[in-house]
């Protein structure tokens, strides 16, 4: 840890404030620039009486100028009040999110753990046995994995494992099930989320290992007679795995994005599916809250990743 690390961390955290405000502005502007009328979405159940619509607009504050709407919205958001949804039985947005967040987090955590456990060993072996059959299979597989559309992979898995073979349940999260049976519902969606990440991790881990292998200190370690095992694990791996922290961090937005398609295909009751439904129904409070919360989460995670990386790698300078 260098001397300036304290100020570096403090500065990164302080920088979050303007980023968060910027995020809220961008999200708000994108949604309010669009031509659709949220009052229509809200009033869909009532008759399309212009008087009713005007009343709805006034009640929702949609008649006020945009900057005023933004100010009102921000002051609520700062107190974690996201209002009630226009649809979804007019439930409070925070409840809608609260009910689903765990389902999404569990699925994504499983996918991430799966990706790390599969990809890092494969990447290490690939680098150690460069151009071997296993290396070619791993790098070739990773290349194919990158080109695989997640929604198609999801459909093909459903077709093969659920429809044809009947090994796994086709969709939903299996409400009312427990234990192994519950887990069987997680497998397909988690695999679909994990495949592109595994591909990226294998490629990165492999090239990171090969890069470190070229360093002088590795040659030194070999020259002084250390066993290849010790060189690999104590000298190469320790240094090669540090940049993986950043790569894992970069995957978070991808995971959250992937969740929209995966949860929709598998009818998974998480935030991705909620977001998709909200978008189709123009449910502005839900869309706003979801984009803002996930955006803020990713901004915070970026800072955490940077700090962890800086602490792990003493070569990083704090300037």
């Amino acid at each position, binding site marked *: 840890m260098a001397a300036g690390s304290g100020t570096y961390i403090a500065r990164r955290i302080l920088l979050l404030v303007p*980023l968060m405000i910027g995020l809220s502005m961008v999200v708000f502007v994108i949604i309010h620039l669009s031509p659709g009328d949220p009052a229509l979405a809200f009033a869909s159940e009532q008759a399309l009486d212009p008087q009713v619509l005007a009343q709805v607009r006034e009640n929702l504050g949609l008649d006020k100028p945009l900057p005023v709407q933004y100010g009102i919205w921000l002051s609520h958001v700062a107190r974690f009040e996201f209002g009630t949804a226009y649809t979804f039985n007019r439930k409070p947005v925070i409840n809608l999110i609260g009910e689903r967040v765990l389902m999404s987090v569990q699925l994504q955590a499983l996918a991430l753990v799966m990706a790390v456990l599969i990809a890092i060993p494969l990447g290490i072996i690939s680098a150690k046995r460069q*151009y071997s059959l296993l290396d070619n299979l791993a790098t070739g597989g990773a290349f194919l994995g990158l080109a695989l559309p997640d929604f198609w992979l999801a*459909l093909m898995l459903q077709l093969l494992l659920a429809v044809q073979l009947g090994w796994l349940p086709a969709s939903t999260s299996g409400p009312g099930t427990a234990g192994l049976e519950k887990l069987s519902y997680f497998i397909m969606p988690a695999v679909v989320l994990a495949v592109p990440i595994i591909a990226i991790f294998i490629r990165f881990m492999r090239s990171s290992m090969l890069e470190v292998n070229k360093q002088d200190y590795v040659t030194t370690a070999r020259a002084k007679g250390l066993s290849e095992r010790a060189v690999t694990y104590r000298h190469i791996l320790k240094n090669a795995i540090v940049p993986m922290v950043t790569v894992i961090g970069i995957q978070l937005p991808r995971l959250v*994005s992937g969740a929209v398609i995966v949860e929709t295909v598998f009818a998974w009751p998480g935030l991705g599916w909620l977001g998709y439904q909200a978008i189709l129904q123009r449910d502005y409070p839900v869309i706003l809250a979801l*984009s803002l919360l*996930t955006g803020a989460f990713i901004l915070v995670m970026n800072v955490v990743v940077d700090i962890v990386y800086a602490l792990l790698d003493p070569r990083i300078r704090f300037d």
Partner: protein
Amino acid sequence: MANAQVDETRREQAAERIPSSTSPARHLQQVSTKPESQVQIVWRNLRRNRLAMAGGIFVLLLYLTALFAPALAPQDYTAFNRGQPLKPPSSEHWFGTDRQTRDVFSRVIVGSRVSLSVGFISVTLIMLIGVTLGALSGFLGGIIDNLVMRFTDIMLAIPGFFLLITAAALFTPSLRTTMIVIGLTSWMGAARLIRGEFLRVKAQDFVLAARAIGVPNSRIIIRHLLPNTMAVIIVEATLWLSYAILLESGLAFLGLGAQPPTPSWGGMLADGRVDMQNAWWQTVFPGLAIFLTVLAFNLVGDGLRDAFDPRQRRR
């Protein structure tokens, strides 16, 4: 192993280029009158990469298919075959028929138009925005650089696909919306990359020299910096072609892309999902088309990256 081979061939070619029996003066003259352009070098490297060439040929065939789709498709993509709903693949209908009795093979052929045109136009947009912002940011530095890069950070923080479907849904789904929305929500990576390249090239001596003799900024950017970042721009654009096609088919799959009756691969997958249990051909073939197209573009992109820079400057 592969590298050793490449070096060997390169040495042979170098040997061929130097005539053995001529005088030094004549040799010098030859070298100076016929320098190998970067395009030639890249082409020579690329030609040696079999996978990239295979991908390139596939991409070429795809564009030809898209261009002549109506002539190549055995049937009109809207034509009905009365009394033949959900027929499995046969000699008459290679990829079978869909619920509305239309020929799936014809629809896959015509569907290539949507994917390739969205890819082409949205990547043009991505590159226009990304290169402009990245170039200004990298060249001007200071407060503009700071503002642009923080804006980029914010845009990157909103999960890309979520931003994409929000925009696509709110601005009435259509083919045109898809192109514009992919362009407007995907430029951030390109902007960061180009900024980095501009910073790198800007620090080199020939730019300093150009400045010293009073070349205006606009000319430095256009004549000196842009050509030197071209390699990165071309590689990035090729790789984005594949990614834009994935995004487009994802949108279409969610019903937020090109609207019926225009056939798009993603839309066909969504339609075929309903009958997946008894008509696998509806979901297998359009998906395979997306997969192979994306794979081919990736092969070309990777090949181009290696061809521009065999030593792989960037990790």
